């Protein structure tokens, strides 16, 4: 098979020699225009000087990064101390996103497993049902979530009426609410890749494991999880990355106390009061963190592939 493909390629290159690089041009244009250019712009902006009404002055400056990491007092004349405000926001964001990812995994894996093990037509139906809520705008869904869990919302009222709790649980404007919002926003991104992996899983492996004296738990841990791992990792990345930069859920469900990076960045660009270079710098720091994680993962994968 491999040989066949190579053959094809060589005949292609001889027939379309010279055309090859031209044919790939649209791809390069798309990548350049939609991927490279915006990021480059962010990078450049993060090193410019801010203008007070938003926008930038074209003058090189490290002020944005300096502001992110160091505290030089109100007038900028004191000796620099570490500025914890933004680092804490970053930490909280990572924590919230990680917990949301974990929740998604906890619920998403059994869900994906359930769907993938249904018979043919039921499978498509379940998949469709999972995606239905996501045809509604994220903003609206997040606001509905807010109504659902507020102190006088249906959830609390129902629990009160059922006598489960003596007084309403305060959920709105807590970390929990943010995690719930993130979990709800990104659950399908966990379910779908895991579903795809489980769908490809050959259940003869489970039978072979049982035949070789493995109980259910050992089969799950030693056979199923390692084999569907690529799906799980893909799902985790697809949930973690957007959770990290999310701003709707923290804004609407977390209130002022539970700020996340996404909200911080959003604020720098909104209205006239923003600080564009600072927002760009925060975005670049976030991006590099994501890249570091992904590079690490890709390396791991390559090592495994080589073995």
């Amino acid at each position, binding site marked *: 098979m491999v040989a066949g493909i190579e053959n094809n390629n060589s005949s292609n290159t001889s027939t379309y020699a010279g055309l090859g690089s031209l044919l790939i041009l649209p791809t390069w244009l798309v990548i350049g225009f939609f991927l490279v250019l915006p990021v480059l712009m962010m990078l450049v902006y993060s090193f410019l000087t801010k203008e007070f009404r938003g926008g930038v002055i074209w003058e090189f400056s490290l002020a944005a990064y300096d502001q992110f990491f160091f505290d030089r007092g109100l007038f900028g004349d004191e000796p620099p101390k570490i500025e914890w405000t933004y680092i804490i926001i970053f930490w909280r964001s990572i924590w919230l996103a990680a917990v949301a990812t974990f929740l998604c995994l906890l619920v998403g894996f059994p869900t994906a497993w359930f769907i993938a093990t249904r018979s043919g037509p039921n499978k498509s139906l379940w998949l469709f049902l999972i995606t239905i809520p996501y045809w509604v705008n994220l903003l609206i869904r997040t606001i509905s979530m807010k109504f659902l869990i507020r102190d006088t919302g249906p959830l609390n009222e129902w629990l009160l009426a059922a006598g489960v709790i003596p007084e309403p649980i305060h959920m709105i404007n807590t970390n929990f609410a943010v995690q719930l919002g993130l979990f709800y926003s990104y659950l399908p991104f966990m379910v779908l890749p895991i579903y795809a992996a489980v769908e490809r899983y050959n259940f*003869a492996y489970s*039978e*072979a494991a049982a*035949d*070789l*004296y493995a109980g259910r738990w050992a089969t799950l841990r030693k*056979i199923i999880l390692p084999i569907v791992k690529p799906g799980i990792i893909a799902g985790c990345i697809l949930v973690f990355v957007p959770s990290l930069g999310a701003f709707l859920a923290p804004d609407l469900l977390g209130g002022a106390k539970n700020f996340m990076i996404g909200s911080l960045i959003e604020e720098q660009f909104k209205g006239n009061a923003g600080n564009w270079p600072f927002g760009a710098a925060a975005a670049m720091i976030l991006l590099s963190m994501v890249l570091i994680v992904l590079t690490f993962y890709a390396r791991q994968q390559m090592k495994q592939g080589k073995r």
Partner: protein
Amino acid sequence: MGNTRESMKEVAVDIVNLTKCYGDFTALSDVSLDIRDNEFFTLLGPSGCGKTTLLRTVAGFENVTEGAILLYGEDIANLPPNKRPVNTVFQQYALFPHMDVMQNVLFGLLRLGQDAASARARVGEVLEMVQLGGFAHRLPGQLSGGQQQRVALARALAPNPKVLLLDEPLSALDLKLRQAVRLELQQLQRDTGITFIFVTHDQEEALTMSDRIAVIAEGRVQQVGTARDIYEAPINKFVADFIGETNLIMVQVLGLADGNATCLLPGGGKCTCPAAQGAIAGEGHISVRPERVGFAEPDAGVMSGQVARLVYLGTDMHVDVTLVDGETITVRTQNSTGSYIPPVGENVGLTFEQGAARLLVD
């Protein structure tokens, strides 16, 4: 001879009136078999007859609808597969793709709670046994089909099961390899003394390897016996036809006595032949193997007809003779200088060798 010795042995797997239904489809009906300790037992039958289903109920992957399965006297019908001391070589091998050969074979031993050192030693031993000593650190994807088959075998043998179940383990191999592995597998069974239950739809495989064979059709056991029993004394039309080649001739049974039948052949000839147990008078079929039919002068044999076709088969020649009533009888003769091969169009008589014909249960 061997038979009496065999029959004195302990029963390893006793399948008692086993019925298995999928919804309202009956895959196995009233199957009873006793597979003896240390035996190479083969389940033989056409595709879809229920061989895999039977094997899977023994392994524990399918629950039984009715009946019992006893393993050395103990009812295992309600044990989950991981609690049964039997191992399976799967039709498609089902090697764990993320584990190398060593880890695959180790798996069962570690699950049984063996300590790592002795388990590894055992793996080395088993891999030597299947001649895969140098492949311990390959992934299944990096092995040829034949090598994968050996790994599957090693993996199932390593825990030293009481019974080994093999579901068409040779079907993915090419002809030459298949023939070589047949002998190895048989040798392995002798050496390890493990009871093998071997599933195949290849009669040659069954005839050459097995101590005993159960012929299955449409979820029912047709006949159980040694290769010779089944080939030479088939009990019914299905078995006679499925194993080897045969001529099935419709006859009128005139009388039955002492296990022998007197039959009226088409064309008016008569013959006396052994009758299978359960054969009845009236209309019936006899089976005559093509290699046991001979030629005679026209009207000198038990039947006569005209040669319609010659088929060259290398060492042998098939001669198709059309009888007066339009039926065709195939005669198989050796392609040697001494043997008589009539030309096409010749009128010939046909004779049956002593004991060649056999009256069957319909």
